[in-house]
């Protein structure tokens, strides 16, 4: 599954340099500012010059569809996510989020339609997509029986970074996390909040242009949750696109734009302010409830297939 010589797609020296230049952070994040996505795209164009980095959106889905048997989990969704954007991908359980994310990360092929992520086609270049993105799942992707340092090295190796580069990244990451003194502690022994932040850093070890975070803050205390979002802002400020799902509706307000999936389709897409205005709601939570509630239980007897389980035959 890993193609070691395919390094250039996993690691972008241009991006690393640009990140330290801080071109975007000087402008700061434009929270709740309409058009943030468009501006990020413009900035990203200056920033990136790699082969896969030609200024196209970080994610571009066109009628992306996935069916399991006669059940349509994702129904012809189309949307773009700009470079450097914090994009909230919301929806009720079973609305099709997980299936969509699995397609966008190259883990599941679309039934029809398609998407390009980090410059690669998710159907025909799935391996390249996997190497060009970062991914952090609901629960951690860390090995608990390895130390923090070993986890970073492992993932750096998986993504094909050179040893020297891994050493540099490890030192930098541990320092940024304030974990220098605990680099050799087993991950298992670290407090949850640290593990969560380490998992995020590990997902970013190869400096991907886009990182997918699937309920990254589930179950953590309110302070850590907010520290985590500051890491998200920092990543976005250096040009990384952040594609994030959450069940915390206050976190939806922190996104540049959000989409709300209902029954396999994108029922709403816009900045938090735009959605609140168009639904005449005071919070994103209200928007979400209005969209998701009506069809949630009554009209939907068929349970969702758990997305990526083998369809039909297995049950």
């Amino acid at each position: 599954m890993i193609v070691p010589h395919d390094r250039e797609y996993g690691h972008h020296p241009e991006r690393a340099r640009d990140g330290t230049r801080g071109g975007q952070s000087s402008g700061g994040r434009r929270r709740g500012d309409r058009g943030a996505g468009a501006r990020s795209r413009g900035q990203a164009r200056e920033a990136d010059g790699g082969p896969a980095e030609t200024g196209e959106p970080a994610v571009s889905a066109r009628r992306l569809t996935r069916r399991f048997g006669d059940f349509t989990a994702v129904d012809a969704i189309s949307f773009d996510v700009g470079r450097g954007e914090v994009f909230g991908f919301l929806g009720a359980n079973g609305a099709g989020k997980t299936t969509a994310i699995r397609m966008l990360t190259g883990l599941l092929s679309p039934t029809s339609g398609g998407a390009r992520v980090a410059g690669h086609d998710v159907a025909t270049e799935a391996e390249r997509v996997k190497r060009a993105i970062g991914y952090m799942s609901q629960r951690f992707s860390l090995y608990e029986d390895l130390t923090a340092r070993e986890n970073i090295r492992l993932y750096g190796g998986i993504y094909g970074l050179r040893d020297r580069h891994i050493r540099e990244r490890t030192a930098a990451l541990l320092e940024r996390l304030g974990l220098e003194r605990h680099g050799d502690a087993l991950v298992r022994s670290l407090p949850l909040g640290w593990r969560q932040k380490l998992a995020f850093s590990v997902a970013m070890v190869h400096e991907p242009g886009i990182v997918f975070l699937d309920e990254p803050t589930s179950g953590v205390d309110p302070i850590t949750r907010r520290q985590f979002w500051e890491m998200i802002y920092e990543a976005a400020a250096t040009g990384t696109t952040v594609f994030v799902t959450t069940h915390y509706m206050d976190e939806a307000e922190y996104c540049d734009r959000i989409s709300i999936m209902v029954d396999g389709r994108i029922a709403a897409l816009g900045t938090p302010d735009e959605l609140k205005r168009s639904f005449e709601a005071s919070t994103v939570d209200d928007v979400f409830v209005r969209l998701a509630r009506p069809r949630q239980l009554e009209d939907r007897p068929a349970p969702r297939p758990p997305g990526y389980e083998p369809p039909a035959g297995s049950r």
Partner: protein
Amino acid sequence: MTSPTAEASAGGDDAVAVEALTKRFGDVAALDDVTFRIHPGELFGFIGPDGAGKTTLFRILTTLLVADRGMATVLGLDVVRDLWTLRRRVGYMPGRFSLYPDLSVRENLQFFASVFGTTLEAGYDLIEPIYRQIEPFRDRRAGALSGGMKQKLALCCALIHRPRILILDEPTTGVDAVSRREFWDVLAELRAGGLTIVVSTPYMDEADRCDRIALIQNGRVLEIAAPDAVGRRYPLPLLGVRARDRYRLLQALRRYPHAHSVYPFGEELHYTDARAGADPLTLARELRAHLRAGQFPDAEVEPVRAGIEDAFMALMSGAGAGAERRS
């Protein structure tokens, strides 16, 4: 405690009474000297993040785990001495989905009913409002249900033997905002029927649905109060601050000389001023003038009421139990 009436109300009449409960796993104190009481008919919530000790506490209350020190009674029964009696009277819904995935919805219910020596029919009226919603799928394997449906089935299974108290460990974790509201509506109905309900959750916004809550972190109960009261006890002036550029605003506020803490809160920032007892309105005017004179001409500042999360974060840092502390 000395008068006979106080004795009666404090002792036998509590739905749950826990005294100095401690449980260690290796050198980690999962529960550290925890004491509280829950009244009959109360909907009582334990609010705290993963690793706070909620599950350990619930496992002790449901006789599945024995504490190192302290004592606990549920429905007046000792959780160690009276475990066999107690088990028949408690409904427990563990955090992990714990039904039989290969049995159908109806088979799961029948199984749990038979374990408790009863039948689906005998317990039907209690579970009916919930069961009606999953009845169309009664022949479906439990493992093939959607998340929300699984949760409802698990609740039915926990209720089928007509327990006198319901103990639910994080029933809404990982559940979307809409299904969470619906689940709490169900709990409110059960509570209205007189059932005592003890529930844990990491979602602070669910606290308002409880009669009283205990904030719990690192094995310690930080505070027990009605949800409203928790916010009212917030010790310092709290202001809501808005401006277009939220991230830069956050950094600017942290540099403000009187800042105690600044956190994002949905679409605004919550700024806590270090000057205890100062008039929030005056502070708000002063801060707004400061921000508008600087880089934030559109800044809006107004006093806000502290919520559960504000209180929780203040208690966390006040107790020296910051997020970074090793457990």
